[in-house]
């Protein structure tokens, strides 16, 4: 397959879900089995993206395939010269694999939704929104410039708003949708500013052009600190979308949407966008920006993991685990472990989608009960859900033989190597601690949900295994969570195809602004492989150390969960009493919502009230004053009209009428009268002529 065909196929892939969306949004109500429309487009896209990935990786291993066209030509702009905006798509290894992942997750979510959403009054619209969501995410993945990235970024925000608030009759769902949208906007302001700074200096939105300018030493506004600033500003967008501290508050609330939507948001379509964005701009991040990013990631991972421990809503636990794992990815990008961040993005997409669909299956079986305190013993009732759920849990906990182990280990190894090279030991310590917490809360979830005795017999009795269309997605995602899809060696990713094709790009910022180990070494300049030999060795060494420590930590976490919840050697309630302060702190999510509502929200509302007062009194006063003057003027003008103008008109009319009345009498119809008049006329004429 030649390059053009490949690009065209990718472009078709981009627009396939949009076609489904358009058909369903306009004709959805008239199509009886409306889900088939959207599912068939997604399935076609899935097949096509498999082809694209295969062809791309087999024949264009290193080459980036780009198609671009000029969208707007401003011509010659004063002071700037020629100016235009190019749009286009870029298919490189990263975007091709990401596209496939989006399609896989989207497809299983569609499949799962058929039965889960059955009987919903807005069934077809639900699938339409799913299509829009998929389309927007694919746009982010395939774009080759910041402008399109931003447009699709906002489209993702919009479609998440529509889906989180899908059951908008519920006040909480409507609120959650608004929260997600507004919190995302805050991050997007930074993203937009970053893009504008870049455009103001380079007059282009295209990634490759900006990057090549930077690598030639042309920094934005000739200042390294502006480059750092741009990196952090663009990262702000990722903070919002990928729910990083301090904007992570929207993601747990987003659980108000239907569960398959949560799977889509958490796995491949929305929160992944932030990580993907950072990966895209990775090469232009300075060491300061990277440190900032890594710190945000580490803080996020820690905070959300501690919150997840005490939550009781099955979806909220998973939501906080997502935030925590995203923190991992961001931290990993910050410490330069680009490859492992991307790997974790992909593996996490599969097992987190699986976890959410599994929880959807549980919720479906329990008739929309989400509180794990009322579950228990479901292992017997939902065997397939249980076994797949176990696989996902092992994967997220980083147990060998799963995909999660490969990526998580790599991230931990990356932080360890980073600490050895730069001395920031904060990152690996947080990383390992969060690994333990992850294992703990995930096993707590599994044990409370599936093991032990049922705590709500009535619901337990009615529980039943989900239908086949809901189980197939679970089984396929469980398969994808096994190591073999990423590497033949379960302990070492470096032998796998993934490692071969996703290569960490070298940094392009000036040498004095980058971490030394990220700068391209002279030896391997032909390829993108960058790391100096020393760094490779340190990473390799750190990797083995990290593997051992992380296994111990994960084992510790699992053991703790088993002791407390399975064997009940230590009572959870007593523990909560003893550590009541910490327990409450965690249960209330570090009081972030309260803090925000007391500060930012209260401030905004206060400001709005002041502005409303201003509006009501001052602006409305002016408007009302103007209105009063106008009314007075109109009234007087109306008076003039009524009396003077109409009076004149009426006077003319009555004058004419009066004379009409008089002269009417002359027209008698009698010949003799007329003759008298003729005679009179003649006599008058006679006298007139005579007088002349």
């Amino acid at each position: 397959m030649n390059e053009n065909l490949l690009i065209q196929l990718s472009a078709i892939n981009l627009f396939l879900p949009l076609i489904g969306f358009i058909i369903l949004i306009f004709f959805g109500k008239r199509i009886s089995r409306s889900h088939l429309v959207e599912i068939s487009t997604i399935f076609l896209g899935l097949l096509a993206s498999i082809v694209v990935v295969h062809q791309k990786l087999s024949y264009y291993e290193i080459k980036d395939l780009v198609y671009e066209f000029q969208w707007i030509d401003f011509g010659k702009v004063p002071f700037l010269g020629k100016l235009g905006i190019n749009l286009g798509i870029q298919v490189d290894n990263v975007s091709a694999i990401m596209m496939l992942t989006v399609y896989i997750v989207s497809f299983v979510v569609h499949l799962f939704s058929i039965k889960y959403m059955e009987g919903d009054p807005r069934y077809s619209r639900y699938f339409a929104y799913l299509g829009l969501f998929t389309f927007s995410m694919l746009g982010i993945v395939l774009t080759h410039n910041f402008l399109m990235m931003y447009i699709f970024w906002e489209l993702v925000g919009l479609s998440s708003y529509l889906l989180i608030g899908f059951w908008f009759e519920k006040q909480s769902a409507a609120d959650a949708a608004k929260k997600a949208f507004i919190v995302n906007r805050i991050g997007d302001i930074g993203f937009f500013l970053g893009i504008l700074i870049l455009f103001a200096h380079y007059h282009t939105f295209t990634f490759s052009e900006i990057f090549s300018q930077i690598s030639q030493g042309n920094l934005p506004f000739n200042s390294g600190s502006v480059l750092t600033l741009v990196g952090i500003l663009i990262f702000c967008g990722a903070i919002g979308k990928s729910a990083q501290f301090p904007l992570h508050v929207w993601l747990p609330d987003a659980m108000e949407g239907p569960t398959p939507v949560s799977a889509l948001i958490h796995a491949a379509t929305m929160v992944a966008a932030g990580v993907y964005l950072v990966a895209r701009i990775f090469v232009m991040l300075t060491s300061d920006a990277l440190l900032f990013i890594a710190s945000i990631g580490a803080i996020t991972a820690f905070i959300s993991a501690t919150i997840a421990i005490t939550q009781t809503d099955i979806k909220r636990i998973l939501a906080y685990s997502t935030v925590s794992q995203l923190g991992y990815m961001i931290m990993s990008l910050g410490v330069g472990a680009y490859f492992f961040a991307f790997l974790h993005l992909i593996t996490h997409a599969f097992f987190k989608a699986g976890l959410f669909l599994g929880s959807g299956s549980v919720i479906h079986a329990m008739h929309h009960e989400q509180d794990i305190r009322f579950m228990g013993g479901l292992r017997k009732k939902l065997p397939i859900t249980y076994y797949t759920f176990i696989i996902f849990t092992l994967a997220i906990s980083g147990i060998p033989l799963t995909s999660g182990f490969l990526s998580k280990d790599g991230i931990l190894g990356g932080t360890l190597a980073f600490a050895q090279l730069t001395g920031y030991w904060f990152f690996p310590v947080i990383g390992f601690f969060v690994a333990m917490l992850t294992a703990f809360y995930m096993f707590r979830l599994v044990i409370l949900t599936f093991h032990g005795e049922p705590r709500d017999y009535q619901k337990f009795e009615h529980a039943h295994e989900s239908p086949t269309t809901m189980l197939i997605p679970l089984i396929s995602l469980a398969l994808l969570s096994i190591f073999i899809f990423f590497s033949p060696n379960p302990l070492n990713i470096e032998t796998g195809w993934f490692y071969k094709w996703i290569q960490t790009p070298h940094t392009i910022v000036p040498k004095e602004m980058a971490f030394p180990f990220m700068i391209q070494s002279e030896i391997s300049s032909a390829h993108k492989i960058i790391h100096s030999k020393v760094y490779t060795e340190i990473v390799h060494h750190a990797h083995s150390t990290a593997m051992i420590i992380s296994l111990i930590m994960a084992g510790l976490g699992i053991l703790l969960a088993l002791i407390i919840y399975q064997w009940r050697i230590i009572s959870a309630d007593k523990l909560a009493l003893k550590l009541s302060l910490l327990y409450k702190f965690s249960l209330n999510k570090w009081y972030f919502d309260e803090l925000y509502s007391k500060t930012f929200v209260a401030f905004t509302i206060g400001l709005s009230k002041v502005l409303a007062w201003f509006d009501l009194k001052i602006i409305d006063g002016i408007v009302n004053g103007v209105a009063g003057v106008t009314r007075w003027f109109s009234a007087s003008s109306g008076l003039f009209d009524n009396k003077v103008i109409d009076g004149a008109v009426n006077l003319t009319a009555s004058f004419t009428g009066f004379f009409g009345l008089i002269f009417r009498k002359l027209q008698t119809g009698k010949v003799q009268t007329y003759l008298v008049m003729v005679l009179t006329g003649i006599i008058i004429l006679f006298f007139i002529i005579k007088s002349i």
Partner: protein
Amino acid sequence: MSVGLYHFITLSAILFSMGIFAVLTRKNAIQVLMGIELILNSANINFVAFARYGNFGYNGQIVALFVIILAAAEAAIALAIVLNIYKHFNTVNVDEIDRLKE
């Protein structure tokens, strides 16, 4: 005192006035026609008188002859019209005949 032009003209004026009076005041259409005959004849007297006392040759007499012929024709046609009007309106009172169409 010999009879001169002024006598004729005076006679003609008296005749004309009586004709006009008849035309304007009579209600009966026949009487109105008779008034018209008087007017025509007063004109005839004028013509003949001016022909006799002026230097116009016989032109006046000839015009008077024409007027007599015209008056005869007029009388015939007018009487026919009056007959038709009588058939139509069942009256010859000109006061009541004030409609141009039915």
